[in-house]
């Protein structure tokens, strides 16, 4: 039997701090997103990367509308709030005026793949030097967990309580694969945040996307599968497993397109 170690204070022996509560570009850690939500994990990655790439002085985030919108006020760089689905067009206009800025969007699947599908396709086709970050949890979280264009067959949601059925609700869209063939798309990848190794891999995908942008290679998309235990009707501890086995079985993790440099 082990005795617990006190965790309410810094260590009493000589030690080096290797991890801060939150990135320095995060203005607040107080948020009301559900227990077990994967979206804050993605936020941490982008905020750490902006700093690591030396762009804290010149970065813009365009935020869509979804649960993650609440995290927008925590973003410690310039931020432009967009309407549902419209972040890619705002990103286009802003980047054209500020081409040296590191500019990325933060959007959910309902936002990017439902409402704003045409916007992200056109922005990718035009090869705008922006990075679109898709937080994909297969539901419209903010309205209570409804079906989106990425919800997988069989997935139970608030308006597909018996599970998404192809005959009634159609088939899911895997956005990353849809954008990759476009000539203007330079880097397209899908990662996830359901465990530490995947979080690390996803950060590398984001880094490559940002680097492609800064090198002027064109459009980049990093789709990040995030847990939504509330929307998936599972206990928080089962969220990562559900992501891996149900969502990840349809929306496959990996780098889909990268220009060789």
């Amino acid at each position, binding site marked *: *039997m*082990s*005795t*617990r*170690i006190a*965790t*309410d*204070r*810094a*260590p009493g*022996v*000589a*030690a*080096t*701090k*290797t*991890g*801060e*509560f*939150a990135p320095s570009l*995060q203005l607040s*850690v*107080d*948020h009301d*997103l*559900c*227990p*077990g*939500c*994967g*979206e*804050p*994990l993605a936020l*941490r990655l982008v905020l750490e990367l902006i700093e690591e790439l030396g762009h804290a002085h010149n970065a813009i985030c365009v935020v869509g509308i979804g649960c993650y919108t609440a995290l927008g006020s925590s973003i410690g760089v310039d931020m432009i709030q967009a309407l549902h689905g419209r972040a890619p067009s705002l990103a286009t206009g802003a980047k054209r005026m500020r081409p040296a800025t590191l500019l990325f969007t933060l959007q959910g699947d309902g936002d990017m793949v439902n409402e704003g599908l045409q916007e992200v396709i056109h922005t990718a086709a035009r090869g705008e030097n922006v990075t679109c970050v898709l937080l994909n949890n297969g539901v419209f979280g903010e309205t209570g967990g409804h079906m989106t264009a990425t919800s997988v067959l069989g997935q139970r949601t608030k308006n597909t309580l018996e599970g998404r059925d192809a005959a009634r609700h159609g088939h899911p869209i895997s956005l990353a694969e849809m954008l990759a063939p476009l000539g203007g798309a330079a880097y397209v990848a899908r990662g996830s*945040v359901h*465990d*530490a190794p995947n*979080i*690390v891999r996803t950060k590398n995908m984001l880094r490559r996307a940002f680097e492609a942008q800064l090198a002027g290679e064109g459009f980049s998309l990093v789709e990040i599968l995030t847990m939504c*235990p509330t929307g998936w009707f599972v206990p*928080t*501890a089962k*969220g*990562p497993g559900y992501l891996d086995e149900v969502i990840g079985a349809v929306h496959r993790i990996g780098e889909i397109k990268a220009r060789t440099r």
Partner: protein
Amino acid sequence: MSVVTRGTVVIAEERCKGCELCVPACPPRVLAMSERRNAIGARVPDLMPGCTGCGACLLVCPDFCFEVYQYDEAVVHGDAR
């Protein structure tokens, strides 16, 4: 039985929401949910000896509850601290 501990964490228990994601994320399995509850009623995790300071808990916590330290020298824990 003795356990080598190479690091530790500080946990901001007041903002923990009891999601338990840190427990399976910890490679040496030194985090376990306790029966202690914070002000919002969430059960919070306990840390046992054996932490390596890897930071996996920090990565997976949606509420930014973890600060991670690596000891300059490993500490050996017996049955009592």
